[in-house]
């Protein structure tokens, strides 16, 4: 019985980026309060993007923000919060691998692991598990930005490589 023939690849592109320095900022209190009003994405799953639309500050968990590429502006924001004794900055360089998922079937590809539409409903980013890999998933204009825990990254990429569209679409 041949069964594999009917399945076809999804039209997706998954590109790995090697990120440089990455920070996580963790506040002592949550909801974090007044110190985090200006410049901080304060709603759960809110993201601050830079001028090119790249996420630079992601509210990924209670009292926790991911700073995937600390620029001067965000570093200053974090430093000010630390100086105000509102929380701690953690150097998490190497913890996350960054991927960009795009293509017409990008959403469907995610749908083969989670109901990404409902997970991202009303928010720009979410801490999720994609194909058994812990990730931060964010919607960007070209598709999705995904930060995957580094020890899972190889299998994460491989999982996308194996994905096929459901046979109905043959």
């Amino acid at each position: 019985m041949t069964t594999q023939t009917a399945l076809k690849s999804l039209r997706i592109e998954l590109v790995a980026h090697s990120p440089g320095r990455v920070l996580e900022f963790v506040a002592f209190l949550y909801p974090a309060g007044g110190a985090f009003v200006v410049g901080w994405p304060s709603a759960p799953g809110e993201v601050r993007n830079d001028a090119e639309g790249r996420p630079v500050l992601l509210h990924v968990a209670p009292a926790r923000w991911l700073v995937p590429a600390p620029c001067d502006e965000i570093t200053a924001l974090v430093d000010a919060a630390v100086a105000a004794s509102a929380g701690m900055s953690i150097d998490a360089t190497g913890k996350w691998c960054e991927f960009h998922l795009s293509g017409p079937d990008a959403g469907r590809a995610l749908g083969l692991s989670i109901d990404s539409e409902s997970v991202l409903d009303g928010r720009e980013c979410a801490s999720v598990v994609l194909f058994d890999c812990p990730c931060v998933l964010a919607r960007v204009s070209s598709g999705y930005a995904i930060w995957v825990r580094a020890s899972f990254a190889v299998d994460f990429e491989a999982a996308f490589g194996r994905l096929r569209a459901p046979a109905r679409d043959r």
Partner: protein
Amino acid sequence: MSGNLRRGTRLRGETLRFRFDGRDYTGQVGDTAASALLANGVRAMGRSVKYRRLRGVLAAGPEEPNALFTVGTDPCVIPNVYAPQLELTDGLVARSQNRWPSLRYDVASLLQAGGGFFGAGFYYKTFIWPSWHAWEAPIRALAGLGTAPRDANLAPVPHEHSSCDVLVAGGGAAGLAAALAAARGGARVVLVEREPVCGGELEFESGAIDGQAPLEWVRATLAELDRLGARILTATTLVAGNGGEYVAHFEPGGLPGCSTMYKIRPKQIVLALGAVERPIAFVNNDLPGVMLIGAAERFLARYGVRIGKTLVLFANHDRAYAAATRLVAAGMRVRAVVDTRPADAVGAAAASRRAALVAGGTECLAEHAVLAARGGREVRGATIAPLATPSATRNFGCDALLVSGGWGPSVHAGTQEGGTKRYDASLGAFVATEQPAGRANAGGANGILELGAVLADGTAAGRNAARVAGRGSDASAAPTGAGDPAPRLVPFWRSPADRAGEKRQFIDYQNDTTVADLRATLEEGFIDVEHVKRYTALGFGTDQGRIGGLLGAAILAELRGEPLAEVGTSRLRPPYHSVAMRSIAGLRVDENLRITRRTPLYDWHLAHGGVLEPMDLWMRPRYYTQNGPAAYEAGIVEARRVREVGGIVDGSTLGKIEVAGPDAAAFLDTLYLTKASTIKVGRSKYMVNLREDGMVLDDGIVLRLAEDRFLATTSSGHGAHMLSHFEHYRDTEWSGRGVTVTDVTEAWAVIVVAGPTSRTALNAVLGASWAESIDALTHMAFARGLHGGQDLAVLRASFSGELAFELHCRPAIAVGLWESLVAAGLQPYGLEALDILRVEKGYLVSSELNGQTTPADLGMDVMIKLGNPCIGRDLLDRPAFREATRPRLIGVRAVDGRGRFYGGAQLTAADAPNRPCGYVTSSVYSPALGEWVGLALVSRLHAEGAVLTARDPLRIGDCAVRLTSIVHYDASGGRMKS
């Protein structure tokens, strides 16, 4: 029939060849295996499980209990495929099951001669002597249906997750009307339909909808649904509901292969799963040629199969006349319609059909029943009698006997997860009543069987669903239609029969449950329907009780003399529909059963002879093949080399948690047996955590990076657990305090550099800028800086007893550092050598941290005495932990210095040779000492110097051992301090 070109709604004309039980046949594109075989005049398609009775097709859907095939050729076969769902493909190979040597001649079918001897409860009363097991193998060989393949090479099945406003299950009249109403109201609709095409009974029912032929309306509706953006998933069966999420299984062709599992979360679900036709119990009602009326109609309409030349129909409702009319119109002769009801119970429409049938030569008998099917290997006739005088029998010749005892609304999906049902006397069935929020039934599932009412019910359910889902209400006209009128059913369950006959009145076909079985079961006091189900296997077949469940309950009620409403039916279990395990497992199959975590050095290990083994989700090198053929030999070589020269090992899998904030030290003080607050910045400490009940949870090194910043390392296997443990206390007792907990496991690769040349090698690799700080490092101190532009910390700590350093570096430079160390003369070693080095030095290996040991058991008295009031401390004071027989960690060696003993050996003293006083937790052959050394947990009654026996009957037998200091090698620690 052969020779006549068949016309059916599903047929596409093109001829296909296939093979069944070794013979070649032809069919058409669109056929199923069942329809093509019937068209070829094949009646017998399987044998039952218990009595091995020859069986034909009874039903036209997955409720089919008899015609289950094995598809494919060895080694890749799929057993138990429902023939009415198996789509014909060119070259298909199928065979019947449960027979030997052939379907026609089956040796085991001789068992049925035993009749009542093998009835319900038979096994419980026999085979006691000499033992059940003595009889079991041949009995097992007789049971079962098909054979699992020797190799099931099936593709992984994707699981697609989505949400929608309204999910409609079932694409018949009710489901289509519901989907249409919901979609017109603006709802995002998904419709799943089990068959490859929508329509349900509209495929054969007479009538019209909105002035169109039913199938025209189906086409128009599907087109409109498509325009409205609804998603129509055909060949997709609802299999389970799980707290608001629904699982549907797409299995085209009725075979596993290119399947998909849909996990759909609708705001509202409309269950329009129709109703399943049920048979009536009469003698030999299982002969090939006995078929449900609805099945015969489906085979005719879909595939142009005429089920026989001369038919007898047996029913208790009006639909029999409509069916007979259509069957006659298709060229079959209906010899008789046998109706259990009085003549005046028949409705007007059916009465006029009856008159026409009579005029055409069909005998229509009221208040009559088919008492028995006649024939040997298939139906040759029917014995019919008036119900008032069952002895006045007449024999009718026929080659097919079609039966219908009514319909069981498909409430299966509805009664799981809190839905309820009630008995409806006019249907003789249970219909769904109250459903949890978010769920509604429509059409047949509500017991509504008349087309106009079905459309109205479906429309109402769809409109309501869209409204509750927050979408608009559809104001356009609902489809109206009229078809076969309501069936006017009068419940009738079984024809009169004597006791001998009851043994061949089948209720559950697959398990051969008969009326006689129910009677015997009652006699033994199994009264409740749940007990009867378990005692007779009623409803345990692959049809999940769809054919026989209600019929059995009704006959049970009759035998008990109680109303069916009170007797009830047995609880239906999920899944709603059987589903292949491969589909359930989805992508988590083969190498992808679980995700693999890799360290930055993973590829290097693989490329350089590393033999990797799973540790939790990680893969770690146990040894390197260049050092020996197996772990034991290689481990010795690697461990010896570490002590003689040095070596490096990948410690990146260690869990790492950064604890930061002004309250970090105080927080860690409560989490560890000893205080973290006394660690100075730039120094580290070996620390131990307790579980809430006082048992040792984990150990590791805690580094103080700054006044308000610590890095806690955990063992590789406990990393996830420890992180959650830290986070729990952070979020509960320390909530709102100045402490943060961050998992930085992947942020730091760890390379352990151990051995006498470690410092030299390190200096060579890190260069002059690091030399001074490395030379200055005292035991447990660390230095931080940059290497290749990336963070690096060098900690002087040792678990090998040698001078050793832990390099904590960013992953980006891990491979480079590692390769430089190799170039500097250090060879890698694996976990096997690591364990040898640890045990030689008396350091804990993971087997001592088994959740059963207190810190005192592990000899951590010094730490306990410091009196830090940490988590778990309170419960350490319990009396059991102070008893003299409480175990304590101690060293162990063979008395003669040559004997072997393994971890897991039990230790006994001479005075109690079968009562262990301890056990060996770990042992290694020590290349440094030239003998086996180990650690053991032994009752405190036995002190150092005591001689015990290491007993290992499972592996190598006994070995006399002596208890020793736990430190076997370099007790003074001189090597480490060098």
